[in-house]
Structure formats: C-alpha cells, structure tokens
C-alpha cells in the first residue's frame, strides 16, 4: 500500500504542478489526517474550482492517473501537431523556395512601409506573422464518438487536409460524426451545429478523396484557420498601417 502511494505521488509530481491532485486523491481515499482534511475543505470553500474538482473526483470514486496521463498525451499531441506541420512545411524544397521568395517580398514590403512612415516622421512597429500555428487546419478526435482513426495516422491525415484544402477564405470549427464502411471509406457523415455550407461541402470532398480509415465510427473536430484574423476580430494594438498617414 505504502509503495503504491509513493509511486502514485511520484507519477503525479512528474506531471506539472499537480500537487492539488495528490491532495484530492488522498482526501477521497481517506489517506489524510483530520487537520489535512479540514485544511482542504476550508480551501475548497473559498475556491469553487477546487470544490467542483473534488466533487467530480468523488463522484468518479477516485483519481485515475492513467486517464490523466492520457489526457496529457492528447494535449501534447495537439500542441505538437501544429509544430510538426509547421516544420514539415518549412523543410520541403518547394516550400522553402516559395517561402524565401515570400520572405524577400515581405522584407521589401516592411522596408517600404517603414521608410514611408519614417519619411513623414511617424515611425511605427508592425508585426505581421507569416505562418502562425492557428493558420493550420487542426483536428481533434473525440473519444465519445468511437474508435475510428486514419490508417496512416492522425498527423498524416492532418497534413493531407492541409495540402488539399481549397477553401481559404473561411474559418471555423466543424464537428462531425461518421461511420467507416468495410472498404475504409467514411460514410453517413453528420455535422453538428449546422456549419457553413461551403465548409461542409469542402469537408465532404476532402473526406471522399482522402485516405482510408479503420475502426467503426468516429467523431472529429476540424478547425479551419481564419486566414486573415484581422477580419475576424480587432486586436487592440499593432496593425498601425490601416490608420491614415497622409
């Protein structure tokens, strides 16, 4: 028993900043002394976040570290996804060529803007990002939907989408349910929340031409990037170019 707890604590402390979790575990499993229990209860009364978490874990009848490390893996995968697509994009020759051409134009453009502003004694800093992570299509499979996955893996599927998507001027998040037939094709695709028709058609097209799947059914979130974020929301700073400078 003792070594088990030690192992648990060790694993938990490996996960960042999760000391509250080990307290919750000890509390629910009756491993705390009375003062410790009182302290946690008192903190929870001041902290609804903690309170809800304790109630949740109590309802689940304990902390399951396996679940949580799975979650951590999902998060890592989600974060790495964009990093790997970013790298993949950077290191193919074609992209590199296009990229360097774009970079030259970019530098010229910035220099132009800079000098234009400089000449009229109004210097501004302008930050423009060429490829930020949210300008990539991202997918997130949902466990509740089933076990289906692309045969070549999620990253490959994501890169396929990235390479073949033709709709560039629309952003948004699409949730879809589907089944996999015996040939590995997706069938009975259903969309949640009535998404944009153009995106819907585009997804159906991509899926139809896309790689094969295994599993029975699945559920996915596909996030399309908003190519030009300035249209979607106004940041409070930068993008000074838009202001008039006569």
């Amino acid at each position, binding site marked *: 028993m003792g070594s088990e707890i030690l192992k648990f604590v060790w694993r938990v402390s490996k996960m960042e900043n999760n000391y509250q979790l080990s307290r919750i575990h000890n509390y629910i499993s009756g491993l705390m002394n009375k003062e410790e229990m009182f302290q946690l209860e008192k903190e929870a009364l001041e902290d609804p976040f903690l309170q809800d978490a304790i109630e949740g874990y109590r309802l689940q009848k304990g902390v399951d570290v396996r679940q949580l490390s799975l979650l951590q893996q999902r*998060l890592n995968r989600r974060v790495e996804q964009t990093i790997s697509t970013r790298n993949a994009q950077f290191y193919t020759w074609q992209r590199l060529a296009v990229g360097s051409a774009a970079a030259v134009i970019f530098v010229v453009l910035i220099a132009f803007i800079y000098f234009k502003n400089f000449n009229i004694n109004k210097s501004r800093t302008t930050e423009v990002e060429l490829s930020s992570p949210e300008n990539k299509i991202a997918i997130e499979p949902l466990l509740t939907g089933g076990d289906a996955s692309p045969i070549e893996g999620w990253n490959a599927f994501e890169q396929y989408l990235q390479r073949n998507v033709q709709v560039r001027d629309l952003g948004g998040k699409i949730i879809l349910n589907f089944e996999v037939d015996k040939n590995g094709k997706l069938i009975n695709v259903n969309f949640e929340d009535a998404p944009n028709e153009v995106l819907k058609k585009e997804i159906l097209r991509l899926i139809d031409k896309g790689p094969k799947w295994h599993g029975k059914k699945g559920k996915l*979130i596909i996030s399309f990037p908003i190519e030009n974020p300035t249209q979607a929301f106004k940041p409070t700073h930068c993008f000074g170019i838009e202001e008039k400078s006569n």
Partner: protein
Amino acid sequence: MYLKASIKQSNIPSMTEKELLIQYRSTGDLDLLGKLYAPYMSLLYGVCFKYLHDAEKSQDAVMQIFEELIRKLRIHEVDNFKSWLYTFSKNFCLMQLRKEKGTQYVDIDEQVAVGHDYLDESDPKEWSESQFEKLEMCMLTLKPEQERCIRLFYLEQKCYKDIVALTGIEMNKVKSYIQNGKRNLKICMESK
C-alpha cells in the same frame, strides 16, 4: 502553515502565468498555451466529471475547452486565468448538458451561490468588538443545523468527517449547511 505553503505554491506560477498569457496573445504559439493549460487539466477533468458524469465525455470536454481557448485567449485579455478558466469551463459543461437535454443534474441553488465566491479575495482585516457582536447576532439568524455546522467547522476546526460523526448529519448535508451558512452569514454581516 499548510495554508501558507499552498499560497506560495500558487503565487509563483501565476507570475509566469501572466507572462505566458501575454506572450500567447501576441504570438499564438500553441506550445505556450499548452504550458499554461497543462497544470489545470487534472482539476478541470474533475470539474467536467462533476457536470458530465462520464469519463470519456469529460476527457473530450477538457480537450474541447483547450480548442476554444486557442482562439479566445488571442482575443481576450484575461486577468485572473484560474478563475476565468473555471468559469469558462463550467459554462462549457453546462452548455454541453443543455445540448443533450434530459440529463440535467445541476443544483441551481448551488450554482448561483458559487459564482460570487471569487469576487472577494478578502484580506484579513482587523475586526472590532462590535463586529464580533454582530457576528454572534448573525449566527443566531441561521438555521440551527447551519449554525451548528459552522461553529464546528470554523471555530473548532473539525473536518467534515468529524462533524458527521458528532452530529449524525450526512456528509453532503454538512457541506451544504456550511456553504449556505457561510453565504447567509456574509449577507447578514454586509447588511445594515
């Protein structure tokens, strides 16, 4: 002692947390957002489980909340990430429940009460004699069970389990007596 340790623990990361928030807002680097989010995932999972009552749904919800943050945190300037995240996540779960109507488990009374608790991160003020008198007065306005539980918890520092043993009241009731009693006391103390 214990309490002090926990306060220290939460203060140091919040320094860097603010920096992470600001940096993420300007760069959109998911790595930063991941670092910001990871420490809260286990607590969030618990919160989601409280509302959704299902392990897989809760795991999905934690990931879906992350997806939402990717955009939200580039737009909004968030001051207190922890409480913002909590409120956002709770609303997310409640929306989720509303979507699959018919499976509502939420105790509304408790929901209304909980939301305000973050507003007063009260620094301990010196209490005058008259305030103690007022407190005693207010204690008398509580329901007898609430008063008893409050006394045992805050004055005698008994944990819930002890209070259950002493009074024979169920654990859940003890908790809600203390929660509601505390709220009523506050209302009473702030009146007049």
